[in-house]
């Protein structure tokens, strides 16, 4: 049994970068001009590759075809090149490679981990998955069926209900409001031609971001990268996803369900990763509701009052918006009390800021926690991709501590005032909460 549970509204791709002094990060450019960040590591016979197609996430799903990106992730390894579905899967298993794809709202991700002795075949299998997926009828219908069954399975999940409702208020009219997995109707509408178009229009070299770790030479990696990605179009189709300022400030919505515990999701506009105040905001956020077992929300909601098992809040910087979001879950009878305590802490941090001691501690936390990401090859590869997605250069890795240490208390507390506002919270509650009234 764990003492904490994961964040509420979305899975967040956390963009906390690594420090240079811990690892040897190199920037490579292949013969065809494709860039990759690379950490050589021969400590175990494994190679891990992560990549992203920037701006090719679910937000670009055509209207009425929501769930397209998600469906593509399920089908790239279900038949590619000369290999039909079962043969492809068997080929991956034969060499114990691990190939997976993931669609975020903004970006499309691919990951490969292989024993280095099998990397030749593994890279080949990844190459055909992204360059020549088959989308044969049997796997297409099978995966569609799995998504539809999954949607039904999640239909009455309080988190799913709450998350969907919260996003539909805050991002009303924008693609971010739509569920990444789509709806039963939209998933049923997706045709093979849509799947092919998704790949043809979005998998392009101008969108590509690559991180590689492991037991492979720099020279070989350059060749591999050209084999994998060199045949993709140089430029992909442009998709215009509009910017959205979060809406619904001050709204509280209660979705009644006969369950013993009320799920509370809340948040408001946040701050973009490119904003110069990003670091100060991260620090205030960490003090208020960040990870670890000692944030203010954790202390007030859980430790002092025993109101919840999990309570947290975080910044979610997106490409076309930015939010602060958080949540908790409390027995119905005390749900109002939980919300009141969270609001009070939210107000307090905006009005009074954080203390000099808290600032010093959170800087230590941020500087001390980065090497923990370096414990596994996938952790390193994902971090290399994340740093690049944030638009940062390789030199950032050595500047990071300096940037963090330079944040002053005045800055932090100005940003706390500017970003956090208890009256602007959009709140969604699922359950039969006592002491919480809807505010339209």
């Amino acid at each position, binding site marked *: 049994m764990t003492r904490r549970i994961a964040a509420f509204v979305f899975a967040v791709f956390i963009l906390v970068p690594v420090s240079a002094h*811990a690892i040897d990060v190199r920037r490579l450019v292949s013969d065809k001009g494709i860039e990759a960040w690379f950490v050589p590591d021969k400590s175990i016979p494994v190679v891990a590759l992560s990549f992203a197609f920037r701006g090719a996430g679910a937000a670009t799903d055509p209207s009425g075809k929501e769930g397209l990106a998600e469906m593509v992730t399920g089908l790239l390894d279900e038949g590619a090149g000369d290999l039909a579905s079962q043969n492809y899967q068997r080929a991956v298993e034969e060499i114990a490679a691990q190939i997976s794809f993931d669609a975020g709202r903004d970006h499309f991700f691919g990951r490969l981990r292989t024993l280095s002795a099998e990397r030749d075949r593994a890279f080949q299998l990844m190459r055909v998955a992204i360059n020549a997926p088959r989308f044969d009828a049997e796997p297409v219908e099978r995966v569609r069926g799995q998504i*539809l069954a999954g949607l*039904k399975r999640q239909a009455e999940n309080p988190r799913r209900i709450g998350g969907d409702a919260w996003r539909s208020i805050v991002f009303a009219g924008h693609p971010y409001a739509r569920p990444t997995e789509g709806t039963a109707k939209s998933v049923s509408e997706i045709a093979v031609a849509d799947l092919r178009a998704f790949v043809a229009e979005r998998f392009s070299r101008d969108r590509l971001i690559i991180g590689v770790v492991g037991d492979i030479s720099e020279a070989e990696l350059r060749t591999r990268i050209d084999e994998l990605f060199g045949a993709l179009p140089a430029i992909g189709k442009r998709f215009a996803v509009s910017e959205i300022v979060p809406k619904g400030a001050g709204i509280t919505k209660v979705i009644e369900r006969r369950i013993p515990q009320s799920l509370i999701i809340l948040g408001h506009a946040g701050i973009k990763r490119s904003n110069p105040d990003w670091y100060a905001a991260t620090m205030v956020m960490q003090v208020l509701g960040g990870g670890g*077992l000692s944030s203010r929300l954790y202390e007030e909601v859980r430790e002092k009052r025993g109101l*919840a098992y999990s309570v947290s809040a975080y910044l979610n910087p997106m490409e076309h918006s930015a939010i602060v979001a958080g949540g908790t879950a409390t027995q119905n009878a005390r749900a109002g009390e939980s919300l009141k305590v969270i609001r009070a802490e939210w107000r307090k941090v905006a009005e009074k800021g954080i203390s000099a001691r808290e600032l010093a501690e959170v800087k230590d936390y941020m500087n001390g*926690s980065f090497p923990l990401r370096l414990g596994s090859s996938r952790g390193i590869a994902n971090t290399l991709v994340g740093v690049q997605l944030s638009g940062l250069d390789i030199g950032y890795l050595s500047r990071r501590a300096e940037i963090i240490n330079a944040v002053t208390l005045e800055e932090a507390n100005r940003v706390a005032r500017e970003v956090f506002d208890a009256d602007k919270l959009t709140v969604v509650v699922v359950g039969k909460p006592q002491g919480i009234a809807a505010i339209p």
Partner: protein
Amino acid sequence: MSASLRANAATSSVTQALRRLRLAIGVAALVLTTAPAFVPAAQAAVFSPKTFELENGLKVVVIENHRAPIAMQMVWYRVGAADEKPGESGLAHFLEHLLFKGTKTVKPGEFSRKIARIGGRENAFTSHDYTAYYQTVAAHEIEMVMKLEADRMQNLVLSDEVVMPERDVVLEERRTRTDNSPAAQLGEQRNRILYLNHPYGRPVIGWMSEIQALTTEKALAFYRKHYAPNNAMLIVAGDVTAEHVRALAEKYYGPVPRRMIPARVRPKEPPQRAQRRVILESEQVRQPAWSRVYLAPSFATAEKERAYALEVLSQVLGGGSTSRLYRTLVVERGIASNVRAWYAGDGLDYAEFGIFASPTADGDIDALEKAVLQELAAAVREGFKSEDIERAKRLIIASAIYARDGLRAGPMAFGQAFTQGQTVEDVESWPERISAITPDQVMEAARILLDKRRSVTSILLPEKGP
């Protein structure tokens, strides 16, 4: 999130059981000496731990891994929910929460504040057989966390003022995990009925009414009874040396006195003679699900080959997209949207082998059940192709190499072995033993296992009315 392995099976959905399965494979696996073609011979030894024991009986395992300047400490105690007295369900897990509440010299919350201050990660987890605590920190901070962990091995201080709010936290945890989730409730009922007599049937988190009756005194009594160096294993992995860890262990854990530890004698299962069936209908369910769990021998209780054969069986039968059940039921017949088999073989006293199937979005659950049982019978009748068994074995063995890609898998494997009746050598020889399993052994294990009298079938359905 660090859920306890058995706690997952006990309290929640099959999805979590599947996650647990993957974890179990990732965790227990090592690399082979008789290596298949793709395993480099030089990699024959994997975790290659250094082990020693302090005079007070604390066992210590050090896994040196200098890849990144970080280190993980885990302390495992041989006590879990199956060691509770009847009527005190949830006590082992409750005490786990209370270990964060301070000692004679560390104030409540100070432990976690110190870990946060250095950017560390920490957590703890409880199963039927074990309770474990861990921190991951920059390697140069390992002394601090060893000092803190050794302190709470003997100096815990509890008062109602901190214990009572934490009891409410655990009640909320129960609501989050179980009471808000029909699948978890079904799993809890299923588990209760799978065990006719053994305490594995008890939910690790405890029954609501029994958690509400737990007290500071009961927690302290449980602590004094089970928390001692001679009932624990310290594991340190990462950018450390065995010499340094030994010196620190002697300094901080060395002075902790031994205690008399009660033997872990638990009620045994009687012969199981009747198949059981649990059905949960809920208005929260839109998509039905079917599963069956068989009581099985564990690594600790089976003749060795039997448990390893079951591990291979779970893979070849329902471990992935090319497994027999997935291929026939999902790909060829299209009657299921998903199907998986899993073996949770780590229990000190018993293990579980399960099959989960999800119908298509508009599918019929009775037809699905019939098809699954037909395919199971056919698999036992016809056997598996040797190439399929070889591929399954290769996958399990390769997970051994991947297990070294990160700090967590090694400590998990040794901690589970220690608390669940296995040895360091068992962990180290895992790939060899998987490799040695023959198709005949897999089939024999399958025939003995698949006895419906030792099973519970559980079905999750939408509300149908009275």
